């Protein structure tokens, strides 16, 4: 979602992506063990991410990056900031 109210698009996070759409990672928030693990799994700034789908009960989510599939909960996905489009 792009908000152009003050001329600058609002940052999208991974938990705001629509199913099937692609984004590029800008940052991973948190500075803790979880954010380190997400980066080590390949969610680095510049990496391309695609939201493949969500589990039937709404959580967790399945994303595709660097040629493989990763599942993570919405709470973890919310830490991944994407480049605005």
């Amino acid at each position: 979602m792009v908000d152009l109210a003050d001329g600058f698009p609002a940052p999208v996070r991974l938990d705001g992506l629509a199913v099937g759409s692609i984004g590029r990672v800008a940052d991973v928030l948190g500075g803790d063990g979880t954010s380190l693990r997400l980066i080590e799994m390949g969610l680095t700034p510049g990496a391309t991410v695609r939201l493949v789908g969500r589990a039937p009960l709404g959580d967790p989510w399945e994303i595709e990056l660097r040629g493989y599939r990763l599942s993570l909960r919405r709470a973890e996905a919310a830490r991944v900031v994407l480049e605005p489009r």
Partner: protein
Amino acid sequence: MHEPPAGRTHVTAVLLGNPNTGKSTLFSALAGIPTRIGNYPGVTVEEKVGRFVHAGVTIDLVDLPGTYSFAPQSPDEQVAVDVLHGRMDGVAKPDCVIVVADATNLERNCYLASLALELGIPTIVALTLSDVAATKGIDVDVVALARRLGCPVVPVAAPTGAGIADLRGAIVAAADAPPPPRPDLAAHLGRVAAGRQPAEREAIARYAWIDATLDGVVRRRPPAAISLDERIDAALTHRLWGTLAFAVVMLALFTSIFVLAAPLMEVISAGMEAVAGSVEAALPAGAIRSLLVHGVLAGVGGVVVFVPQIALLFLFVAVLEGCGYLARAAYLMDRLLVGAGLSGKSFIPLLSSFACAIPGIMAARTIENRRDRLLTILVAPLMSCSARLPVYLLFCGAFVPDRAVGLPWIRLPAVVLVAMYAVGVVTAAAVAWVLSRTLFTGPPQPFVMELPGWRWPQPAVVLERVREAAWSFLKNAGTLIVAMSIVLWALGSYPKPVLPVGGDMTEAEVRGEALRQSFLGRAGRAIEPVVRPLGWDWRLGCAAIASFPAREVVLGTLGVIYNLGDVDPGAEEGATLLVRRLKAATWDGTDRKVFTLPVALSIMVFFALCAQCMSTLVVIGRETGSRLWPVVTFLYMTALAWLAAFVVYQLGTRLGW
């Protein structure tokens, strides 16, 4: 041809790699069956070492637990890191590291490779799953990759054996080779924003190095259409179809336990009976014969009879794991399990516990989060294991009226059977929920899990898992159950009975009287006030006490109490006889039947929830490293069992079931 380096006759090599890279298959192909299985000192992480000889050199191959990085998030990963740095007692610092890299997602696998290259140990990269990569349009230039990484890269296809001989030779050669050059991260590090944590900066720099290293080495042809992989995934994680598929898979799994295992169990029962018969014929009557037949052989038979069921369930689980479905199952179940205070990773340990809680509890080692792991271990025994099934089958078959429920082919006894399984599951969810909100509060732990590509499960790996599970049951439970059977035999045979004069009692009647007058019988009578509210008489109390160390013995003990002697209630003939006796049983001195429907239900519910397995408690103690948790498990489960049985009996009687 690799000549053995002069003088060196022994090499310690380790297999390092991400999970799901075919590492286990590679281990089997290189070293066959592991020579050493046990735990690393001080931790509950399994050590897997194999040995093979190549060109006159003996190679000890250590299969390290799958890991994603050197910042360990679990005891498994900590062990891998410790072994690599030579910090693990009893394991020599490795002479050679083999990084197992999956060609289908080389970027992430190279993360671990880049870490390994910094260890200063000779390194080889074993490239697996190249055939799968080819079907996805991925092509890896092995020569260029080796040049860029500065270490040998050996493509292997473990199922066909291709590349294995080359890899063996490379291991021998590498042990005396110089260590590879360290990856140059400096340039990439400079381009990362300064304000981040150092560990994060380094990780980001590493991926930048990987992108540069793999540029031109890995070529991807954009797929012409949606790959088969993706289509399978879309179907199996689909809101409707995925859930349906999951239900079908679970149904098939459980049906196979009942349907396929039953004939196997009959065969084993019959076999044990034959053995007991010949021992009985060979020896003179007396304490020794009694001990052997009713103590030792009864115990052994009671253990061995469950192996088919356990093996079958683990076969199913191993196949599902090998093809990649189990990760999807954990993904589908995560939300539900989070609602119960657990997580998707608890799914496999809890599922395994339906066969036997012991391998299930040991499988909880894969849960990184300490709190989740402990909760999973504490509720795993509530999953109705194989030993409870004979109890359910006998009482459902004998005392639940065979009426149709809704549709004509849905029978009430089957519904009650399923309900007993459901009782365990629902109680487990409730207990986990309560504990997670009271004693074990904490922030929800992250759930970051790879969903591996779809593959054909490897027979060698599948069979190894089945063997491991059956062995851990036999070793842990088996020995204790046999020991307990002997103790129970003693408690049930002594003091020797005072028989009425002019005794023309049958052997079975003598045994029944012996049990009644023994310590066990007296104990049964002593606790009768406690079990009366459940609708039980002293005989049932006796059988219940006898089954506290191992619930397997309950039907056999009931058989003896009701003067059936050696008849085996596990086999069909014996069961029919026992049922007849139970149906005719009355309260001492009255005409009132003991076994009504509410009583049968209260028995089943009690067995569903009670902690009647000393082996499980011992394993819980080992896996949690404390004596507190087995005690807690025993107390809470027994209390819940009594309460539930009480409610069911009282309610059922009042409602006139």
